[in-house]
C-alpha cells in the first residue's frame, strides 16, 4: 500500500519508496476510513437484513447478523396484507405529491433564478433577502396557521393542498441553488442565440435551460427528497388514512405494530428509503459541490 496523497502535485514531490512511519500512518488512516464506512452503513445494513428475517428469528435470544432463514414474508405483509397496512395507497400519494412538487418547483425556481441573475431590478436585493429569511422559518412554528389556511380552502386531505405547501417549502432553496448554476452559464451564449434570431424567452428556453441540466438534476433531487421524506406537515394536514403519505404510513404502522413486528417495520422502512438512496447515489456529490461553488463564488 503506498501513501498516495490527494493531489498529483503533492504526489510528485514524494518518492515512491515509502518510509516506515509513513506506512504506519497510512494504515491508521485506512483503518479509520473502514471504521467510518462501517459506522455509516451499519444502520442501513441492519434495516435491510432485519427485513429479511422471520419474526421468530428476530425475537430469538441470539441475534443474527445475517438472515439465516431468508424470507420475503415481511414484504408480503407490508405490500399486500391490506388489513394491516395501507402501503400501496400511501405510495401512490407520495409519488403524486413528489412528482408535482419536483416539476413545479423546478419551473418556478428556473424562472425566478433567471430574474435574479439575468436582470437588475429594483427589489432584487429584497427578494434575495426574503428567500434567505424564509429558509430560517421553522415549519413546525407555522403548522397551525398552515392548517387553517388549507382548511379555509377545503384543501385538507388533498394531494393539491400538500403539494402547494411543499412547493413553498422547497422553493427558497431551489431558487438559491439554481441561481448559482444559471450564473455559471455565460450570458454571451444567450446573446449569440438572440443574434441568430431567437427571442429572449427562446434563448432562455433553448440555450440556458438545457445547459442547466446538472443544476436541475441536483435541485430536482433535493425537492424530491424533501417531498418524499416530509413528515410533520403530512401528519397534520393529510391525516385521513387514505390520504397518508409514506412517512405518515410508516409511523402509523410502527405505532400499531409496536414491538411485535420489527420485521414488517424494517421492510416498510427499506421500501421507503430505497428510492431516496438510489436518487442520492445518482447525483452523488453534486449537491454539495454546488453548495461549495455557491459559497465560494458568492
Amino acid at each position, binding site marked *: 500500500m503506498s501513501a498516495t496523497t490527494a493531489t498529483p502535485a503533492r504526489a510528485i514531490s514524494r518518492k515512491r519508496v515509502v518510509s516506515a512511519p509513513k506506512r504506519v500512518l497510512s494504515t491508521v488512516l485506512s483503518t479509520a476510513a473502514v471504521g467510518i464506512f462501517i459506522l455509516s452503513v451499519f444502520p442501513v445494513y441492519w434495516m435491510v437484513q432485519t427485513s429479511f428475517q422471520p419474526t421468530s428469528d428476530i425475537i430469538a435470544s441470539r441475534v443474527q447478523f445475517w438472515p439465516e432463514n431468508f424470507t420475503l414474508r415481511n414484504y408480503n405483509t407490508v405490500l399486500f396484507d391490506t388489513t394491516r397496512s395501507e402501503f400501496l395507497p400511501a405510495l401512490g400519494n407520495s409519488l403524486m405529491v413528489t412528482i408535482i412538487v419536483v416539476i413545479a418547483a423546478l419551473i418556478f425556481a428556473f424562472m425566478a433564478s433567471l430574474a435574479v441573475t439575468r436582470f437588475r431590478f429594483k427589489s432584487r436585493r429584497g427578494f434575495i433577502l426574503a428567500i434567505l429569511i424564509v429558509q430560517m422559518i421553522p415549519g413546525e412554528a407555522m403548522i397551525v396557521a398552515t392548517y387553517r389556511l388549507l382548511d379555509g380552502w377545503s384543501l385538507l386531505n388533498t394531494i393539491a393542498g400538500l403539494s402547494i405547501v411543499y412547493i413553498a417549502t422547497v422553493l427558497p432553496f431551489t431558487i438559491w441553488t439554481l441561481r448559482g448554476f444559471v450564473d455559471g452559464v455565460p450570458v454571451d451564449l444567450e446573446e449569440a442565440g438572440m443574434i441568430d434570431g431567437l427571442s429572449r424567452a427562446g434563448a432562455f428556453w433553448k440555450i440556458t435551460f438545457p445547459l442547466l441540466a446538472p443544476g436541475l438534476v441536483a435541485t430536482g433531487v433535493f425537492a424530491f427528497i424533501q417531498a418524499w421524506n416530509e*413528515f410533520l406537515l403530512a401528519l397534520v394536514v393529510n391525516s385521513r388514512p387514505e390520504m397518508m403519505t409514506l412517512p405518515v404510513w410508516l409511523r402509523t404502522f410502527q405505532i400499531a405494530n409496536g414491538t411485535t413486528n420489527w420485521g414488517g417495520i424494517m421492510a416498510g422502512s427499506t421500501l421507503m428509503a430505497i428510492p431516496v438512496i438510489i436518487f442520492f447515489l445518482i447525483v452523488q456529490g453534486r449537491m454539495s459541490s454546488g453548495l461549495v461553488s455557491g*459559497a465560494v463564488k458568492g
Partner: protein
Amino acid sequence: MTTIGSTATTVPSGIDGENIVAPTPTPAPKNRRRRRQGRLTPYALLVPSLVILAVIVGWPLIQLFIMSFQEYGRAQVFGAPAPFVGFDNYAEILADQKFWNVLIRSLLFCLVAVTLTMGFGTLIALLMTHLSKFFRLLVSVGLLLAWAMPALTATIVWGWMFDTGHGVVNYAFTHWLGLDYAGHSWLIDPLSFFLVLTIIVVWGAVPFVALTVYAGLTQVPDEVIEAAQLDGANGFKRFTLIVFPYLRSIFLVVFILQVIWDLRVFTQVFALQGIGGIREHTSTLGVYIYQTSLANGEYGTGGAVAVITVIILMAISFYYVRQTIKEEV
C-alpha cells in the same frame, strides 16, 4: 432591442429600506446583469414564486404573529371570536418553568449536536484528503448512504437497534463486552434518550458537513499549502492559518445550517418518543410547539412559542444573512 452592458461596477445603493446594506464593489466577472428595456420581465418571472411564497409562507406567518397575541383555543377554532390579550401569552410562557426547561434542553442539545457534527465532519473531510482513491471512495459511499436515509426511517432503525428486548446494541454490550445490558431500556432515562437522539442526529448530519467541507478542501490551491509546508507550518497550523480562512464562507454556511436544523429538530425527537421515552422530559422546541398547539389546543400559547423560536433562529442567522447579502447582491 438594445442591450446596455453594465460595466464593471453597478453598485446597488441604499435599496429597499434594508439598511444592512453596505455598497461593495461588484467583482468584475459578475457583471452579467444588464439593464434592459423590458423592465417588467424580471417581475413576470418572479410572479409564480412570489405568489406561492406570499400565500403559503407570508400569510400564515402574519396569522401566527397575530394569533400569538390572542386568546386562541379550541373554542376559537370552532368560530368563537378570538379576543386580543396583549402580551398575556408571552407572559404566561416566560413564567412557565416547562418552557424554560424545553428551551434550555433544545439549546444544549443544539450545542452538543452541532459541535459533534462539525468536529467529526471536518475530521472526516481532512481524512479523506489523505486517503488513497479506494478508501476515499469507500468513505464517500458510506457517507452518501447515511445521508440518504430519511430522518424518520433512520430514527426507527436506530430505535430498533437500541431496542430493549432484541436490539443489537444491548446484545453486543452483553455478549461481547460482558456488560449486563440485557433488557436495558435506553429511552426511559432522559439523558440516555438524548444520547441516542444525538447519535441519530449526528449520524445523519455528519455526511453533509464532511462532503461539503471535503469539496471545499479540494478547491484550496496546492501551491499555497506547499508554500506553508516549506515555511515549516505543521498540520494544525496549516489548517488554522491557511485552509480555514479559505473555507471560512463554507464553514459559516454549514455551521448556520446545522444550528438551524438542530434547534428546530422535530421528526427524530417525535418519532423516538413514539418508540419510547417520556414526553415531558425529552421534548424540544419543535415538539413542544406541536404539543401545545395541536395536542392541547392552546393555539395562542403555541403561537407565542413559535414566534419566540423564529426570533431566536433569526438572531442566530442574522450575521450569516448580513454577510451573504453584503457579498452576494
